[in-house]
């Protein structure tokens, strides 16, 4: 079995969740790599949209910021920021959004704003950016994150973006057009919402255990009755990632 780093594992598993034809609202870093990997494997018709207003980018180099000029040159369309959020995201033209944050709680709510009290922050984080709307309006959301106890509290300090709130029913009653988080891809396995919207462990990566997952989760993590095991990264996936997509290992080096 091939050797791989944790970011490679995350990226490959995120890529596999994408479907051909998906319109993806994507940031830089691992989500960008995951989309490009999916495009080169099972999802050649995937469309990448960036919050900077870029549709159908064809970057000639690895983009280093959400507004990298390489995303613009050769793109299919570029529009303003109001339009990208309104015509694309709010209107319902986005299938998939990627989210991240400092804390993800039991019901998939995310905190990217503040640790401690909002008015007297212990640690001030970057804030929502586009994530409040992505979480609400993209048809499906995926979260890519290292699996650490401090990142998975029972309840987030600040709800920057909505998962299932306190229960799937609460999200449904809010009439949000998007379906909420569909999977959290970690370096231990994959968490997915159950019928109540609670994140439970549905898959383990090779050589990882249920105990690894439980020990690194801040709530009493439940395990799916039909727990699955992810296929290890293939040589092909790793080759594309390493040779084509991030040859300088800017995002793929291990040790995050």
């Amino acid at each position, binding site marked *: 079995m091939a050797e791989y780093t944790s970011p490679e594992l995350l990226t490959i598993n995120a890529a596999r969740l994408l479907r051909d034809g998906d319109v993806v609202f994507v940031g830089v870093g691992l989500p960008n790599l995951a989309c490009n990997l999916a495009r080169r494997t099972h999802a050649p018709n995937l469309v990448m949209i960036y919050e900077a*207003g870029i549709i159908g980018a064809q970057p000639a180099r690895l983009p280093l910021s959400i507004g990298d000029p390489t995303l613009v040159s050769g793109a299919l369309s570029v529009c303003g*920021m109001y339009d990208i959020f309104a015509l694309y995201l709010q209107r319902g033209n986005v299938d998939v959004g990627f989210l991240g944050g400092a804390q993800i709680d039991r019901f998939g709510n995310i905190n990217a*704003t503040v640790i401690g009290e*909002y008015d007297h922050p212990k640690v001030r984080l970057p804030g929502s950016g586009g994530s*409040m709307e992505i979480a609400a309006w993209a048809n499906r959301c995926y979260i890519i994150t290292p699996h650490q106890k401090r990142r998975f509290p029972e309840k987030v300090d600040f709800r920057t973006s909505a998962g299932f709130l306190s229960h799937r029913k609460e999200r449904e009653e809010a009439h949000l057009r998007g379906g909420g988080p569909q999977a959290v891809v970690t370096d231990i396995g994959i968490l997915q919402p159950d019928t109540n919207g609670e994140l439970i462990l549905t898959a383990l990566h090779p050589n990882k255990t249920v105990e690894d997952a439980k020990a690194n989760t801040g709530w009493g993590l439940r395990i799916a009755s039909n727990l699955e095991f992810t296929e290890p990264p293939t040589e092909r996936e790793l080759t594309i990632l390493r040779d084509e997509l991030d040859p300088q290992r800017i995002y793929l080096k291990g040790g995050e």
Partner: protein
Amino acid sequence: MSKVYSLSEAIAKFVKDGDLIYAAGFTHLIPFAAGHEIIRQRRRDLILARATPDLIYDQMVAAGCARKVIFSYMGNPGVGSLRIVRAEIEAGNLEWEEYSHFGMISRLQAGATGLPFMPMNPTAAGDLERVNSKYRQVIDPYSGEPVVVVPALKPDVAIVHVQRCDADGNSQIWGIIGEQKEAAFAAEKVIVTTEEIVDENVIRSDPNRTLIPGFIVDAICHVPYCAHPSYTQGYYDRDNAFYLQWDEISKNRESVKNYLDEWVYGVRDRQEYWEKLGEEVHNRLKVTPRLSEVVNYGSY
């Protein structure tokens, strides 16, 4: 009467202590030269609004120009934290007002279109609306469902960097256009900085490219390389190395002070700054051309 000024004249004339400033540009076209000139002219008590404060506001906050920031994403794009703004907020030295990106840009959209507010569909996240009382709700009179609203943002001054404009300020922008148009229309005063001042006929050859009409522009400043370390599509690349370097510089106040002394207070204007950056940087940021296909408007 000509509206063409040097950048230092324009800042002196149109930016006052206490003003609400919107230096536009989402990653692209950020008018760093204008931020540096505001620092050199030692403006105080400014309210600095931008979706992403970026390094430009980190530097202006470090220089003591601001009493408040309004933002929706406070990071060093592609690098990590925005250390100065973050530290000042954590220390309780800086007021702040916070939105999501769509909330922020909806405020500008309302300002630009002359509406008192803009509606947005609910996101149900709740906490940002709880801590920021400028978020309100109205009831959709058709469905009875709540809609979230934010009030118009009308900056005292918008600073907008563009690729080219004519001597009247009719401005063309391509690449990421972000909130350039909205900021200009929302603001009371508009300062346009430009890579090139071109003949009116260049503008008139492609009117669909003109996002900002000259008659809403108060000052036009010819400032090549205005956006460095941000970039101007087709003119020069983003200086990613500097974004990484700032992450180091901004780790302590001494190095920040040294940076400002050398690169802001220590130079007269953008031209001196650009020359000081030197050949290696110039060459590294050079861009080879990739031209648009022409379109035919027809002679009628």
